[in-house]
């Protein structure tokens, strides 16, 4: 797990009003986490949630005043590609997403005057022995071997290809902008011997892990960003989080404003419409609107009476405008304090960590990073959750092997082309689910990844449907195809042949695991992952054999 160093420096960063951030020091304490040995956030005292309205202040007219804010960071103070000093260079390089955040981090880290210094220095990438903490794709072969046959291996968690590509792009960027801004030491490979470059690659991988494990998806403008403080809350995998990360995500992708920006009226920077046309078009609309309102007083001449009426309208308007003389109550505040307060008064321009349930003194406060399975947790955060309810065990490899039997060629080709997508959509409809969400992995042979046993030991509906399809004779297959509008009901019928097929695949799947001893430093990550997969398969085998 990426760890946190220099906590005091981080707290100082929060105390500096120019950072427009608020860390609730009265309520929160950073201590060693209950699991894993990294840092975690703990309650200094009992904190109650009085309101049951959890929608938060963002976009709502009301804020739940009773529940204290644990953390508020202005979007101006998050570390995103857009906010970093190299913003214009990233734009020219066409870089965004994780790549942009990692580069923003590296170039800010290299700048001793960076406004994020206190925060950036709190991100630790080394273990107690001074070795970079790397993701599983960078583990040595011995350690990788023990993931053989696991979902982690199947899903490519041990494959370094992506991180290599990242490194290549980062180096190319550093070279490209070198004439403007020196390379950060982490990307300065010039004249270094091969083994040193390899070490640098390891450090780079550790940085990507640290950044990606901390980054949040903010909005359509910033994309991914580091949010100081928000990344200290550890993950609860059991749908039992104490806090939510809240921010307005639906903003203008060009300028980040949440409403009323010029891009919504005139379009993006490179939009092709004739500028003057766009401008006058919209004005025409406004005007015609007003004309309708004032239809009854279409004038051919402007008289003194008309002017008098305008004048009295104007007086009324000016009268109704509140006196905007500035509030003197905070006159003793420094300029930056005043600006921080004004940034905070608009929660829509901030990222918040808000409490969603009451918490007792000295308890660790958890967030959730999403419904993530252990292979994902392992690759992104370097920890796993015991008996993770989001775990599944895939049967893809078994199915690929089985598919080679030409007896099922017709079944499979129809499933691949039509059946899978159709079944998923009929299933989603039957369950009242969002079809789009359910169909995300329906492209090409993505269905094979979707053939799996869920954490409760049951095959997923599509997996069962596929097994049931294969157990049909050619005549039955034809019938099913002809009545494809009833696919959902015909493929969910209980069928011992389908069960036998699934059982066969599960048994094959069990034999996929290697019998390797897990090296000691990896046990806490690898063993729970493997054990849970095996448990899931055992449950499935037990049920299917009944």
């Amino acid at each position: 797990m990426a760890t946190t160093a220099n906590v005091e420096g981080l707290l100082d960063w929060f105390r500096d009003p120019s950072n427009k951030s608020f860390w609730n020091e009265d309520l929160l304490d950073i201590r060693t986490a209950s699991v894993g040995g990294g840092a975690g956030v703990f309650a200094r005292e009992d904190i109650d949630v009085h309101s049951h309205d959890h929608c938060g202040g963002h976009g709502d007219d009301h804020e739940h005043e009773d529940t204290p804010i644990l953390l508020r960071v202005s979007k101006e103070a998050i570390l995103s590609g857009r906010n970093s000093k190299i913003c214009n260079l990233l734009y020219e390089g066409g870089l965004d997403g994780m790549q942009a955040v990692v580069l923003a981090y590296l170039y800010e880290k290299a700048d001793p005057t960076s406004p994020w210094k206190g925060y950036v220095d709190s991100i630790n990438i080394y273990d107690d022995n001074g070795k970079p903490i790397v993701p599983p794709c960078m583990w040595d072969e011995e350690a990788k071997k023990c993931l053989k046959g696991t979902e982690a291996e199947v899903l490519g968690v041990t494959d370094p290809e992506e991180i290599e590509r990242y490194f290549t792009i980062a180096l190319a960027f550093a070279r490209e902008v070198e004439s403007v801004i020196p390379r950060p030491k982490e990307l300065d490979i010039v004249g270094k011997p091969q083994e040193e470059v390899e070490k640098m690659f390891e450090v780079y991988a550790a940085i990507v892990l640290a950044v990606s494990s901390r980054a949040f998806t903010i909005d359509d403008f910033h994309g991914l960003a580091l949010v100081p403080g928000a990344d200290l809350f550890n993950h609860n995998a059991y749908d039992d989080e104490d806090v939510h990360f809240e921010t307005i995500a639906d903003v203008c992708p060009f300028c980040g404003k949440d409403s009323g920006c010029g891009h919504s009226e005139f379009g993006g920077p490179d939009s092709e419409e004739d500028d003057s046309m766009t401008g006058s078009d919209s004005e025409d609309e406004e005007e015609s609107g007003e004309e309708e309102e004032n239809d009854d007083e279409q004038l051919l001449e402007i008289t003194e009476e008309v002017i008098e009426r305008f004048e009295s309208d104007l007086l009324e308007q000016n009268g109704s405008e509140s006196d905007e003389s500035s509030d003197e109550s905070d006159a003793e505040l420094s300029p930056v304090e005043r600006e921080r307060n004004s940034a905070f008064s608009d929660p829509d321009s901030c990222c918040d960590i808000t409490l969603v349930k009451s918490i007792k003194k000295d308890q660790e406060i958890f967030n959730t990073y999403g419904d993530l399975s252990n292979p994902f947790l392992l690759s992104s955060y370097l920890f796993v959750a015991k008996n993770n309810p989001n775990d599944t065990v895939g049967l893809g490899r078994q199915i690929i092997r089985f598919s080679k039997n030409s007896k099922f060629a017709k079944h499979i080709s129809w499933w691949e082309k039509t059946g899978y997508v159709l079944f998923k959509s009929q299933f989603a409809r039957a369950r009242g689910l969002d079809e789009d969400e359910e169909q995300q992995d329906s492209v090409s042979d993505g269905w094979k990844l979707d053939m799996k046993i869920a954490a409760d030991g049951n095959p997923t509906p599509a997996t069962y449907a596929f097994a049931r399809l294969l157990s049909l004779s050619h005549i039955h297959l034809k019938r099913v195809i002809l009545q494809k509008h009833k696919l959902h009901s015909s493929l969910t019928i209980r069928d011992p042949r389908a069960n036998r097929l699934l059982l066969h695949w599960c048994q094959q799947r069990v034999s996929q695991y290697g019998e390797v001893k897990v090296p000691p430093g990896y046990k806490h990550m690898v063993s729970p992952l493997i054990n849970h997969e095996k448990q899931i398969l055992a449950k499935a085998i037990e049920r299917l054999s009944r």
Partner: protein
Amino acid sequence: MVEATLTFCCGPDCGKETTSTLKCPTCLKEGLNMVFCDQSCFRRNWAQHKNIHKKPDADSYDPFPKFSYAGNVKPAYPLTPRREVPAHIPRPDYAQNGKPVTEIKNDRTGKIKVLDEKEIKALRVVCALAREVIDIAAAAVKPGVTTDEIDEIVHNETIKRNAYPSPLNYWNYPKSVCTSVNEVICHGIPDKRPLQDGDIVNLDVTLYKNGFHADLNETYYVGEKATANKDLVNLVETTRESLELAISSVKPGLAIRQLGEIIEAHAKKNNVSVVRSYCGHGINTLFHCQPDIPHYAKNKAVGVCKPGIVFTIEPMLNMGTYRDNLWPDNWTSTTADGLPSAQFEHTLLVTEDGVEVLTSRNKKSPGGPVKRIA
């Protein structure tokens, strides 16, 4: 058959061609032919339009008598009618209706334009012209001259050079130059107020020609009293120096946010404060664009200097509080305590190894530094 005469609607947010005969009766009485395309246009623009109307029995008047001004400077209306720009002079997109659409579209996109050789050449030309214009206007600065008379000079000298005065109708700004006197921080609208011995006045000139804007401003002492005022000289000279210090730090690789550190440090050293509400800006084919250049320390402005980018630095420093107030004209910004404010600005090009001041002074330029009074 009588052919309708084609004219332009004088509504600043409209400016369209029209055959309308709807005229402002007050203007007619003053001998002005101000045509509005329709009554809703007239209604919409009335509040701004009436600023050119004279008041009987008064040469000039305060249009906002209920407003509590921070200092002694007050608007002296009526404004003179909008000055004409000959049709053959190419205009920026906002000239007609006030909306800088290309600017709006490019707002905050993260892109900082890099100019090529050809573009830089075109920009150099307009920057040199802008320097000529401000120098001519500055030579006219003396007690008794109204800021409107300076506007007339700037306007005429600009169009004489086949350039468009960029401020004119930008977001419906009514004049061709900004003239900011004493406690006015920036965006003062030229009017009937005569300059007085002891004033300082900032002239902020921008020209648009060959597709590029050139922007510069300087603060000038008015009369002997001003240069004899110790605190005033300290303010003006500190501002001038802070701009020079900031400029000398500019080179490829400099983080834009660093500029504010330099300016604020120098301001602090000399006991003056830095305005936070207004920034320097990128400038090229757009009047204002990325990057934003805050002049205060500890800002989080984005962007790093690289050869070919062009921006202004234009620190505004105040003798008293850094805080600003806006007049009801929605343009004029003054200090909250009524104490004086000074400003200097150049348009700058980042070069391979440093910076080129495109709007730099020459030997004949009026104004220039004055020794601090011990």
